[in-house]
């Protein structure tokens, strides 16, 4: 009687979303945005712990990084899209997780498609096949962040018997 079991069970969000995933993504977002609020020169930015923290996972090229009053953020334009949208999308999606859970059969496809777009654009820029503007890079990052948030919310939705 699997069908009855599915009908009578209710979906809940795993507490890991609130206690681990959301704080972690919020931490990355705050740190990524923070250098212009703590440093007043490129020298300080270059030596900052915020830049060092992301240096393992982002190229941080100055010409591909947004700056506030001349001080770059800690990550490139694509990454700032990802890190900015992730915690916001997690909070918003958590209100609609029962509806979003209906996309479960398609989530891997959605995530793979968006990832492929980001990888192709990133690789093309890297190998100088074409150059996309910072705005396009930001948008690809935002879409990847949305897809990741959707993936995480669906992964953290569990069925619990009443």
């Amino acid at each position, binding site marked *: 009687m699997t069908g009855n079991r599915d009908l009578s069970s209710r979906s809940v969000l*795993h507490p*890991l979303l609130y206690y*681990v*995933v959301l704080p*972690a993504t919020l*931490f*990355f977002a705050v740190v990524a945005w923070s250098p212009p609020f703590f440093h007043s*020169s*490129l*020298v300080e930015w*270059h*030596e900052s*712990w915020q830049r*060092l*923290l*992301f*240096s*393992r*996972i*982002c*190229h*941080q*090229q*100055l*010409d591909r990084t947004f700056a506030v009053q001349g001080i770059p953020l800690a990550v490139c334009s694509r990454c700032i899209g990802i890190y900015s949208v992730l915690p916001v999308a997690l909070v918003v999606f958590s209100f609609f997780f029962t509806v979003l859970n209906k996309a479960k059969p398609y989530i*891997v496809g959605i995530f793979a498609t968006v990832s492929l777009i980001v990888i192709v654009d*990133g690789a093309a820029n*890297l190998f100088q096949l074409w150059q996309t503007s910072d705005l396009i890079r930001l948008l690809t990052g935002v879409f990847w962040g949305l897809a990741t948030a959707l*993936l*995480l919310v669906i*992964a*953290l939705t*569990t069925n619990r018997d009443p």
Partner: protein
Amino acid sequence: MEPVQSKSYWNASAKAGVVFGFVVFLVSTIGSYITIHSEPTGNLLSGTILASVLGCLVAIFGGVLAVKFYINEYGPEMKIGQGAVIGLMTGIVMAVVSQILALIWPVIDGAFIENLQTALIANIEFSDQIPAAQKEGMIDGIYAQFQNFYSVGNILQGFLMGVVTYGLLNVLSGLLAAKFMGRTPQPEL
């Protein structure tokens, strides 16, 4: 009464952490050599672009591999939280392994630090994005950074940064792997 087998995460985390710690170190070191052997472009991190992008992509698979090892060892029944813990532990092992290898490599290639320092400084001098007044300060910063390469503070900082980035990224990949590769344990009736 049969003895209860305790399911340790360490085996899976250690194996995946060592593998991916080595891979992350390898990608980063290759990136450094690309910087060393390239003409200065003015980009601070010209040769390490590939390394940092690949490093990010590669690093998140540590948690996935660790969960795979765990499933191979104990079967697919696991909770999402277990995947997150396995991912965190894998990230910590990755940080330790990559940090140790990064400290050993300059001993093997004695000119590595000096060459990398020279290449980075050449890029700063060539850059048109850095105001001339700030170039000197950045070059001084790079000198200081490489002179303190083996200082306790520098080593601890590198380790801590690795734990935070690899740890948190692999928490996410570990829990996703547990969800999609594992199976939620059913309560006994």
